[in-house]
């Protein structure tokens, strides 16, 4: 593994080397290494599409799957389909994440389309971190899609973070939840320069007792623009909550477009959105503790996106 690849890998998945357990490392559209374990099988797609199937056996407990996707050249257009089949009662952590290192003047793009099929009582923690780097003029574009099909009493938590260097992102997440299924999505985004970030969630709460909690925190600096869309349809006795909290700075723009629809009398749906600049009294308080205005701003943002 070369230094650029190693550094990217470390940033998107906290890995210092080839991970233990099941993994697939994708670089510039090709697999750089793959490993299956007794309980977790990873195999290449056979339908002509680029990508992998990740099959987790029923009752697998506390195992990890690492599937980082990296791009280290300009002019790459990487489209990948990854499908995750999580067996009944399994409890696993999946670390995805994408890093684009582009030193060229040609754009590089990664589009990862992930589908999750959670069987009854399956539990997944899905971590996704996106970064862009490199000093070329070529854009770094990451467009992830996550489609979740959650069967009875399954649980999925998705933590997604994009804090720097991605020029353009269009993130689409959809979910269909059966009885008793739970979905928690925590999203953190920071944009700067002329970057754009668009996030769309669409959740169908189909089963009795299903619940979804979507929490987005974002910071838009300089001339960057963000759009947050969330649609939650309550089709049963269910609970849905979405929250968009954004700090705008300089000429940053954030739009929040929530939509909640109760198609069932016992559906409880809530949306909260707050967008604004850093409150003056927050800066003042930290300055009375001896921080400069810049340091205070940094502390407030660090805390907000922690």
């Amino acid at each position, binding site marked *: 593994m070369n230094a650029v690849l190693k550094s990217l890998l470390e940033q998107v998945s906290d890995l210092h080397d080839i991970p233990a357990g099941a993994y697939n490392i994708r670089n510039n559209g090709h697999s750089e290494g793959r490993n299956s374990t007794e309980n977790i099988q990873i195999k290449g797609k056979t339908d002509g599409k680029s990508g992998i199937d990740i099959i987790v056996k029923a009752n697998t407990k506390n195992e990890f799957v690492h599937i980082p996707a990296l791009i280290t050249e300009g002019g790459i257009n990487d489209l990948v389909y990854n499908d995750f089949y999580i067996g009944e009662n399994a409890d696993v952590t999946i670390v995805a994440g994408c890093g684009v290192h582009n030193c060229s003047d040609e754009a590089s793009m990664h589009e990862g389309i992930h589908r999750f099929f959670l069987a009854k009582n399956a539990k997944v923690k899905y971590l996704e971190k996106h970064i862009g780097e490199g000093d070329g003029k070529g854009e770094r574009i990451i467009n992830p899609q996550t489609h979740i099909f959650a069967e009875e009493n399954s649980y999925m938590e998705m933590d997604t973070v994009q804090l720097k260097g991605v020029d353009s992102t269009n993130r689409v997440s959809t979910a269909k939840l059966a009885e008793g299924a739970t979905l928690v999505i925590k999203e953190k985004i920071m944009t700067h320069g002329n970057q754009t970030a668009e996030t769309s969630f669409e959740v169908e709460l189909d089963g009795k007792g299903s619940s979804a909690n979507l929490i987005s925190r974002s910071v838009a600096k300089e001339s960057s623009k963000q759009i947050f869309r969330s649609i939650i349809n309550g089709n049963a006795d269910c609970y849905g909550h979405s929250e968009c909290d954004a700090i705008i700075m300089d000429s940053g723009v954030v739009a929040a477009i929530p939509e909640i629809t109760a198609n069932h009398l016992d559906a409880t749906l809530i949306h909260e959105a707050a967008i604004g600049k850093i409150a003056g*009294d927050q800066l003042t308080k930290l*300055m009375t*503790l*001896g921080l400069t*205005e810049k340091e205070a701003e940094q502390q*407030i943002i660090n805390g907000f996106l922690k």
Partner: protein
Amino acid sequence: MLELKNISYSAEGKQGILKNITLTIEDKKFVVITGPNGGGKSTLAKIIAGIEKPQSGQILLDGEDITSLSITERAKAGISFAFQQPVRFKGVTVKDLITLASGQQLSTETACQYLSEVGLCARDYIDREVNASLSGGELKRIEIATVLARKTKVSLFDEPEAGIDLWSFKNLIDVFEKMHEEIQGSIVIISHQERILNIADKIIVLSNGEILKEGTKQAVLPSLLNVSEGCRFMKEENR
């Protein structure tokens, strides 16, 4: 020693919030500023902390002119300020805030000590965010803990008793008494509370932007308490 010389302050639409205020706060002294609401007390504290700038006058800390220093520079020079209405921060934990206040890396144990001093069970609070989930009284005590952690020459508290329940009030008095004993600097408290006035070395009565009275509690306190008797008398007279 903190000296204010001829400080005057007017805001847009309101003239004479502070009128030519001159006062001295000696080292190791416990000074309480009291007086009616709207009399200029909070403005005076904000002027000392650098949050508001006076139109005229001078502020000296240990003989050095700090009038033109920013909030940050004054904080570094040795002035701490506990807000009347503490600020909430999403994502910033109680430990983060106390660590920032102390200006150095703190062990959880040390951070907890400051919380215990203000009567909060440290373990329950140290990792909590300083956000809307905390009650007004809890925030107020955390605010006081941030000032304790700074250990500066001058510690200013703007109505620390507001929002603190009666049960915790005794504890608050203990905090200030302990601080008075241990700290080498001076403590300035804006308060309406008789029990806080009672532990003052010096009381300053500020009303309508002017110092009405200034002196030891023996000299000032009895006349303050008379005011309320006067009110009672007026009520009776109005019957």
